[in-house]
Each structure stands twice: as structure tokens, then as C-alpha cells.
């Protein structure tokens, strides 16, 4: 049985480690520390934890001021507020100033579940990806989240890391995360499936469904959306000739768009976009929502068969 872990729980533990190693690390939250798990850092290092109250715009700029003063602030809240509520602060101050602020958000995507549309961020990858200087990471599970956030801490400049709410199966087997490098998680010849976040697990399950039908699917875990790993795409697509992109995000502006932008200019191939099709979310059990919004392994497998016919 695969181990099930919450990436945000692992993030909370990692912050305590990072805070022990580096006295310059400050953590800011907007009254969601018990959900984002920054509460673990708050308990250990109260002097370096800054609860900003329910005021995300101020929080982003306070982090900017700390970064200007040489600190390394980690800012956490839910994805919808961290990316959307303070977008212009992120764009005009953090990114323009190339400031060393790490935005680590939780509760990204439809799998937030019962809280419904107001708390389900389906646009944040697009919002963050369009900003120059911004790096965007979407790890697939708890171990990759830990490695990705460590990698973010090791570089200077703004980074956006998107984590989810639920427990997810552990897939990642690497020891080190390199920003801008994706992993081949299943080798195949007939179709490439490129996924991020919790959709990597669905993609792997889709590959199993396809293999029963005699279709060999390659699965790529695209943990960095920006900068995108073009090399892995070229190698895979030269072999398979068609691609299905999978994300727990709108099909407008996210991983699928990033892949299409790259491939259309470098190696045009038929593409099928698995993602939220220009809709809002709603309340519901995460599993039911994945079915309703056509984000399951079965949906991906069906998409693979469709896109293969367009080769």
C-alpha cells in the first residue's frame, strides 16, 4: 500500500528544519497557520513568525521589506489568496525587485473539496507564470514538496510553490529537486502524458489502464512549470508524437498552456488538455469533484486514445 501524506504537513516540518539551519528565515501567515502548518514554525520560533492577520496584500509587502533587509521570508496562505488577493503586490514589488521571498501556498486546486468555489484556486499557476522573474513549482507529493521547497530556499529570488490540501500517495523517488528539471516516471512509446501536482498519480494510473489495452504511455512529472523543462519534452515527443497534459487547474494558462507554448514553437504535436475547462469549482467530496471535472485516470486514458488518433 502506497504511503499517504499531506504535503502541507511536510512543509510545516521542513520550515522548522530550515529555521534551525538558517536564522534569517522568517515565516509569515495570514491567520491560516493551523491549515498551512506554519504553526509548527510559529511554536518553535515565535520571534521569527509574523502573523499578519487577514491581510494578504500587507503580508506580501512586509515580506518584501524583510527581504530587502536581507532576510529570507516564507509567506503562506491558501493558493487563491496568496496568488490572487495580492497579485499586484507580487508583480510590482516582489518580482520587479527580484526579492528573495518564497510564497508557499496550500489548498491549490479542486481537491480542496467541501469549502467550494471561493477556496478552490484554479487560476493561480497562470497568474504566477505570466510574471517575469517568478519561478513556479507544483510538486506531486510530500517528499517532492520538501525537496522543491528546499531547492527554492537555496536560490535567491521569488518562487511560488503550490501545495494541495488532501493526503496524497507518495510517488517521488529522487533525492534532490532541481528547479527546471522534470522526471520521467514511466517510460513509453505511444503517447506522452505530462502532469503536475496530484495529477501525476492519476497519470500513472492512466498509464496502467492504457497498458492493458496494449498502449505504452510515457509519464512525465513536471514539478517545475516555470522555467519549463523543454529538453525532456523534446526527447519524449520526438518518440511518441502526441501529448496529454494533466493539471488540477484551468486549461487556460497553466501547465497545458506552458507545454503548448513550448511545443508549438519547437516540435508541434497533437495535444489534449486535461484540466478544468473554463469553469468554477463547487463544494463536494474531492473524489466526486475529480470525476465531475474529468480529472481521473480514466479521463486521461480516454484522452490518450483520442490524441493518438490525431498523430
Amino acid at each position, binding site marked *: 500500500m502506497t504511503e499517504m501524506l499531506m504535503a502541507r504537513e511536510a512543509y510545516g516540518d521542513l520550515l522548522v528544519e530550515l529555521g534551525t539551519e538558517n536564522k534569517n528565515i522568517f515565516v509569515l501567515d495570514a491567520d491560516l497557520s493551523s491549515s498551512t502548518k506554519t504553526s509548527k514554525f510559529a511554536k518553535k520560533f515565535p520571534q521569527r513568525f509574523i502573523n499578519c492577520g487577514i491581510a494578504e*496584500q500587507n503580508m506580501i509587502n512586509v515580506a518584501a*521589506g*524583510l*527581504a530587502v533587509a536581507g532576510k529570507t521570508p516564507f509567506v503562506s496562505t491558501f493558493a487563491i489568496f496568496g496568488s490572487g488577493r495580492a497579485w499586484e*503586490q507580487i508583480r*510590482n514589488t516582489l518580482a520587479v525587485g*527580484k526579492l528573495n521571498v518564497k510564497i508557499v501556498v496550500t489548498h491549490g486546486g479542486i481537491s480542496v473539496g467541501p469549502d467550494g468555489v471561493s477556496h478552490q484556486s484554479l487560476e493561480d499557476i497562470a497568474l504566477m507564470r505570466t510574471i517575469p522573474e517568478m519561478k513556479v513549482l507544483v510538486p506531486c507529493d510530500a517528499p517532492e514538496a520538501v525537496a522543491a521547497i528546499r531547492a527554492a530556499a537555496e536560490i535567491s529570488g521569488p518562487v511560488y510553490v503550490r501545495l494541495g490540501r488532501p493526503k496524497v500517495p507518495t510517488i517521488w523517488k529522487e533525492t534532490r529537486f532541481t528547479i527546471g528539471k522534470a522526471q520521467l516516471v514511466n517510460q513509453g512509446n505511444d503517447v506522452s502524458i505530462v502532469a503536475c501536482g496530484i495529477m501525476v498519480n492519476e497519470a500513472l494510473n492512466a498509464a496502467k489502464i492504457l497498458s492493458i489495452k496494449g498502449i505504452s504511455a510515457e509519464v512525465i512529472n513536471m514539478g517545475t512549470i516555470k522555467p519549463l523543462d523543454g529538453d525532456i519534452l523534446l526527447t519524449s515527443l520526438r518518440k511518441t508524437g502526441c501529448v496529454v497534459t494533466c493539471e488540477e487547474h484551468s486549461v487556460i494558462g497553466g501547465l497545458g498552456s506552458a507545454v503548448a507554448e513550448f511545443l508549438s514553437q519547437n516540435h508541434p504535436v497533437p495535444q489534449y488538455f486535461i484540466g478544468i475547462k473554463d469553469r468554477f469549482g463547487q463544494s463536494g467530496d474531492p473524489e466526486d469533484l475529480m470525476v465531475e471535472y474529468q480529472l481521473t485516470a480514466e479521463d486521461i486514458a480516454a484522452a490518450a486514445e483520442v490524441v493518438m488518433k490525431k498523430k
Partner: protein
Amino acid sequence: MKYSLSENDVHDLQQKAKKVRLDVIQMISKAGSGHPGGSLSCVEILVTLFAKVLKHGPEIKDWNKRDHFHLSKGHVCPTLYSLLAHAGYFPVEELGTLRQIGSILQGHPHAKTPGVDAPSGSLGQGISIACGMAVAGKADKAGYSVFTLLGDGELQEGQVWEAAMFAAQYKLDNLCLIIDNNGQQIDGAIKDIMSPYPIDEKFKAFGFHVSNVDGHDIPALYDAFKTREEIKGKPTVIIAKTVKGKGISFMEGNLAFHGRATTDEETKQALKELDE
């Protein structure tokens, strides 16, 4: 007043203010665009701050060993650029490149300008950035102060009040806001567009030490800046009553000059007035 400047000092600062006004008119006129009205209203505030209050200078490399100023109302950057150039952060000749492609002097402040630590231009954000700098200073027990200049129209941004709550909550007595209260914004008088008044009562209610001064009275500004050094446990706001376009007869209180450069004829007239 408890703190005073010598007559010589006051005279010297008034001369500096005149020089800054000359720079502002020439820079914006050459650039062909910019915000002269607000740039002129904050001259005495910034001249007093830079010359007599702020511990700064390009030679002080250690962040913790100097005070910090962040211009939140970024559109009045010509005034800041003039002061930075004359303080030796970059050659004075650079002032002539304002708003040109490739210039270190962007239309709104950018960290590519020596002496500018964080970008600004989008209103309401500077107070929060200053709060972050002040928190870092407290954490490091560095002893520095952080100053930020806001417009009075800028007080309409909700984020200003998020940050004001934050500053009081974290007892940032090393933070000093200055409000350039010239009473005007792009579309008209602030009281007609969206009144922030009473500014002093609002900040008092938010937990600030509040000081009301004439923003063109150098000794009064100096006294307010020095008095705030004695305030413990709360942030300070200095509300400086000013006149938009101050120092040039036809620009004073004239809303037209919020966001347009002077014509050649107006520039000549302005420089002549400053020469007198």
C-alpha cells in the same frame, strides 16, 4: 519647539530646497512627462529628512548601520533622485536621463537606482514594505529607523490601513510615516473624491503617535522628526500640510501640474522664479 536648528542651518536647507526645485523642473521638463506638483510639495520634508535626520550615504554598505527611506508615493521620484545624486549615490549628470530608455532613473522608483532599495509606484505598498524593514531592524536590534513618504490620496488604498494596524500591533517605534498632505489627487481635491479626513484622528485610533506640521516649515519638520525619536512602543505619523506645486507661483495649488510637464515657456518662467 523643543528641538531647533541654527539660522545658518535653516538658510542652508532653504537653499538646498531651491536647488532641488530647480532640478525637479529641469528633469521633468526635459523628460517631457512626470509629476511636478507632488514633487514640489514634498521638497522641504525630504530635504530636512535627508540633511538632518537620516543616517545614510553611499559609503555605508552595512544595512544595519544606516537608516532607511522608502518613497511610497513613487511618482514624485524626481525629488528623491535629486537628493540621492547630490548625496553622491550616482553622478548628478544622470538626472538629465530621467524617464529615458536604459536610464537608471525610471519614471517610478526601481532598485536599479543606487540608493533605492525597493521598487515603488503602485500606491499603498510602501508602508507595508517599510513595516517589513522595521521588523527586520527590531529582530536584529539594529537601532535603525525606517521612514516612508505617502501621499494623502494614497490613504484611500485599503492596504495602508492593513499596514497601519500591523505597525501598531508589532509596536514599530522605529517606523515613521510622513503624509504629504497637499490636498489634491489626479481627479480633484481629495475631500471631494474620497476624503481621508480626519487623518490625524484616524491614525490616533490606529495607535500611532501623531504630529501635525506645516510641511514647508523646515524648523517645524525638524522638531517633529526629532521628537519622534523619544516615542517608544508605537509608530509615528507626521502629517505635513503642504501646497501642491509649492515654490512656483503658477503651479501652486494648480491641479493641472499633478501629472504633466511644464511647457518650454512655463519652464523658463519657473526657473526665473527660482532664480530670484
